[in-house]
């Protein structure tokens, strides 16, 4: 137990929402954010996915247990549980696929620095490393091995042109403000600033929105 846990226990809002519900909220929020952010977001810490995985497993077991029962009442409950289960599975699947798609597009970029690597989960890191190795091998065996050695690199950054493609951090995103705050945005000609109210929805560059989202003052929509 660290200081965060103690603080959370005295927080009056903490006990009003059960953990399962918060997990679902976190998952939904992570899913929405991942799908709209132009770059890969950090893998959620605190074992969120382990808990969700456990719950899915428990529900599947429950469904299997209940299937034997032919009572119409259980049957109805069963359908509700299964529908909920399918939704859960969809959220997780869609979330993971969105991440994999981003990782595949800019593999070398996400593998290039420790900071970026830390955003990937362990499994994703293994996947990305192996995938990049496969690609490199494929290039090598297809044509690259016949090239002069000085041209065989895939991460050449000479001549001001880097071969490592990075996501466009200036892509536009929509955010909803979670509290009153000043929103600053860079423009083409001039920079802008506005006093945002809670639940305002703003469109701006992701690079400008990122600090607000990370501070928990806004969420992606």
């Amino acid at each position, binding site marked *: 137990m660290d200081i965060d846990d103690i603080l959370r226990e005295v927080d009056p809002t903490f006990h009003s929402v059960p953990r399962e519900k918060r997990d679902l909220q976190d998952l939904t929020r992570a899913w929405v954010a991942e799908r709209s952010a132009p770059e890969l977001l950090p893998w959620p810490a605190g074992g969120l996915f382990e808990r969700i995985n456990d719950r899915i497993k428990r529900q599947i077991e429950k469904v299997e247990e209940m299937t034997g029962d032919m009572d119409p009442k259980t049957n109805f409950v069963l359908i509700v549980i299964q*529908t909920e289960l399918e939704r859960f*599975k969809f959220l997780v699947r869609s979330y993971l696929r969105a991440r994999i798609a981003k990782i*595949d597009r800019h593999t070398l970029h996400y593998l290039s620095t420790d900071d970026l690597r830390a955003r990937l989960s362990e499994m994703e890191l293994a*996947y990305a490393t192996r995938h990049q190795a496969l690609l490199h091998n494929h290039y090598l065996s297809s044509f690259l091995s016949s090239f*002069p050695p000085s041209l065989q690199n895939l991460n050449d950054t000479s001549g001001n042109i880097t071969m490592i493609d990075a996501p466009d951090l200036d892509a536009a995103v929509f955010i909803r403000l979670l509290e009153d705050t000043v929103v600053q945005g860079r423009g083409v000609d001039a920079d802008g600033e506005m006093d945002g109210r809670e639940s305002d929805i703003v469109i701006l560059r992701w690079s400008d929105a990122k600090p607000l989202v990370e501070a928990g003052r806004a969420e992606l929509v």
Partner: protein
Amino acid sequence: MPMYGDLGNKLVQHAKRTQNLTHLPPYQTELVRTVAREVRDLERDVTSMLEPFQGSFDPSAEQATACTLLVNHLSMRRDKRCLLAYHRTRTDKLEELVWNGYDILDLSGQQQAGGANGATGMNEGGTTSSLSPQEEDYVRQYGDLLAAYKGHWTDIDLTGSLEPPRDLFIDVRVLKDAGEIQTEYGAINLTKNSQFYVRQGDVERLIAQGYLQKLG
């Protein structure tokens, strides 16, 4: 005489075309080989041009040579980019097919059908597969990699539908005989043109493979 980079451009055009096709056109073995040869030829030119200078080349004193070197240098890099782009487009396509549940056998089978439809006979040696041997290797290895990653999420079925689930049960029509499947409500025999009301999770795979069609 063809200009440097012309052939590379052709590869890029092939890649662009591939992006909008549902199947994979034949691998341009000859073209890839020629572009790679162009790179080697350019490199040899550069080496022989620099040889008389014994490492003491001064670009401002020999402007004509410096210019030739620069053009060669850029052409090589351009060729490399074209080759990379061409191969990446194809592997992207292959990966997409692997995600959709095709394996290497399906792929070469599909390619044979494509060849019969009069696909361009650019690939040499009379092979029917439009994948290069390297690409076949790649598909096999990527399939293994994906299976390993999926193995961490067995309960979720990563390659499942990305449409948000609306109903637990759906109406499906059988397009091709698919034999008998087991569901938790007992076995269903899927014969062509029959119609069923089944749990979506049980038949997703079959829909993706084209055995069943979702109705409504």
